């Protein structure tokens, strides 16, 4: 039996093509994935991301627990409502999940984790809680729904729908959040566009979705979500990283705080590891489409090397194929590599990612 979000029937009523996404019955698209992608880049689209899980951590000194639990430093969170992107690591430095932590108060932090890893994440958090801070209360919030509204006009459309929200959220900077009535509104997203991610009671989700649709926010499925996040150069858990990879070889060194005295789970392993691989961006020069798991080959200083595409696809904004690939650290921006596609070797160029931000191609 597939798991369903509170919007399942709403998606079906809008003729979504539904697919099994890691055990969840989710919309892939509502007609055209490409149209949905462009709508988000040029206007506003909305995604049901209720399969992701908010986890509330409450009690005395939550911050001290989180200092040990995650690789980024929660001491960067000084203003209530501020959000932080981080990895949660195994003692070996492998990535258990990537997540966003919201600082609501010193006694209440909220963590949003991926759908596919939610059960193991919560189990890990509870285990660490029992060892480090047994008095904290950890509550998975399956009673909540989450809707991402993304695009250059996304915020203005949300303001039309939630009364009083403009005054409350207009001054929010990126990675800040606030609460307006039953809506938890964060200026975050997974598309490279402006917009909000909104957490609300499950029962209110269908009417909120329909109200957004009425002001011409386009429903967008997981297909567009994937091409948008790839263009935005954002990692997908399970594809670009997992427990066998650490953040330093996954393009996420910027999310790891190794400078402060603070100890955290996985820190020693990261300090002891020689980093030999990196994530790079690729743009295909020849005609074709890059896909995950294709092999990358090349020569560096006369030595053959191999790598692999972790996420690949067609970029609707750039009208060519792009990818994230894991390659040896010696490979640099501007290098040319070969990708084995079917029985051919196609040429691709190593580029700095993100590929697209705020509607514009950067490479």
């Amino acid at each position, binding site marked *: 039996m597939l798991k369903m979000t509170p919007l399942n029937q709403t998606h079906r009523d809008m003729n979504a093509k539904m697919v099994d996404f890691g055990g969840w019955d989710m919309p*892939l*698209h509502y007609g*055209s*994935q*490409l149209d949905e992608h462009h709508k988000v880049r040029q206007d506003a689209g909305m995604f049901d991301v209720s399969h992701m899980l908010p986890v509330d951590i409450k009690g005395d000194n939550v911050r001290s627990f989180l200092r040990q639990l995650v690789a980024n430093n929660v001491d960067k969170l000084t203003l209530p409502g501020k959000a932080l992107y981080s990895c949660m690591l195994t003692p070996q430095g492998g990535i258990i999940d990537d997540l966003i932590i919201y600082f609501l108060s010193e006694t209440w932090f909220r963590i949003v984790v991926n759908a596919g890893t939610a059960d193991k994440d919560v189990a890990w958090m509870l285990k660490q809680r029992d060892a480090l801070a047994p008095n904290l209360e950890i509550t998975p919030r399956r009673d909540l729904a989450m809707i991402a509204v993304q695009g250059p006009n996304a915020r203005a459309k949300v303001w039309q729908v939630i009364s009083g929200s403009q005054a409350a959220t207009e001054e929010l900077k990126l990675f800040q959040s606030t609460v307006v009535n039953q809506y938890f509104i964060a200026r975050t997203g997974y598309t490279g566009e402006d917009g909000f991610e909104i957490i609300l009671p499950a029962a209110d989700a269908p009417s909120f979705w329909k109200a957004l649709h009425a002001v011409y926010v386009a429903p967008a499925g997981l*297909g567009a979500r994937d*091409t948008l996040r790839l263009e935005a150069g954002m990692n997908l858990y399970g594809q670009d990283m997992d427990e066998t990879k650490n953040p330093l070889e996954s393009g996420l060194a910027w999310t790891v705080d190794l400078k402060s005295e603070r100890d955290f789970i996985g820190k020693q392993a990261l300090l002891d590891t020689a980093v030999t691989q990196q994530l790079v961006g690729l743009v295909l020069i020849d*005609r*074709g*489409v890059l*896909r995950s798991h294709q092999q990358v080959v090349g020569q560096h200083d006369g030595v053959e090397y191999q790598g692999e595409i972790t996420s690949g*696809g*067609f970029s*609707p904004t750039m009208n060519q*194929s792009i990818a994230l690939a894991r390659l040896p650290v010696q490979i640099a921006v501007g290098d040319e590599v070969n990708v084995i596609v*079917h029985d051919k070797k196609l040429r691709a160029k190593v580029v700095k990612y993100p590929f697209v931000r705020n509607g514009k191609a950067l490479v």
Partner: protein
Amino acid sequence: MSVPTNLKYSKSHEWVRPEADGTVTVGITHHAQELLGDMVFVELPEVGRKLKQKEECAVAESVKAAADVYSPISGEVIVVNSPLADEPGKINEDAFSAWLFKLKPSNASELDGLLDAAAYTELVENEDH
């Protein structure tokens, strides 16, 4: 969308239109494009290539996946629909006009082994359930 009755079909979702001059035109079906989603790339066979029936001869790639196209019958490729390479979305708009290539059959009797519209419709319906 209805399945045109003037065409023949392969089990691998190619359509075939026998022309008056003895050649045949080949494309992929509406059902095939529906399964694949928005098309983003098409690789066509080289003109002059001699194909055996069921041989891989083209690639149709969508946002979602790459699909091999198989030659429905044996023959020589005499012309390909080159403009389609720049506008693969034409396949989504109308799969039965967005042809891929034309063949000069080397064994026209193979056409008799293909499905007619009714048989192909049944095949698709059985797939769906």
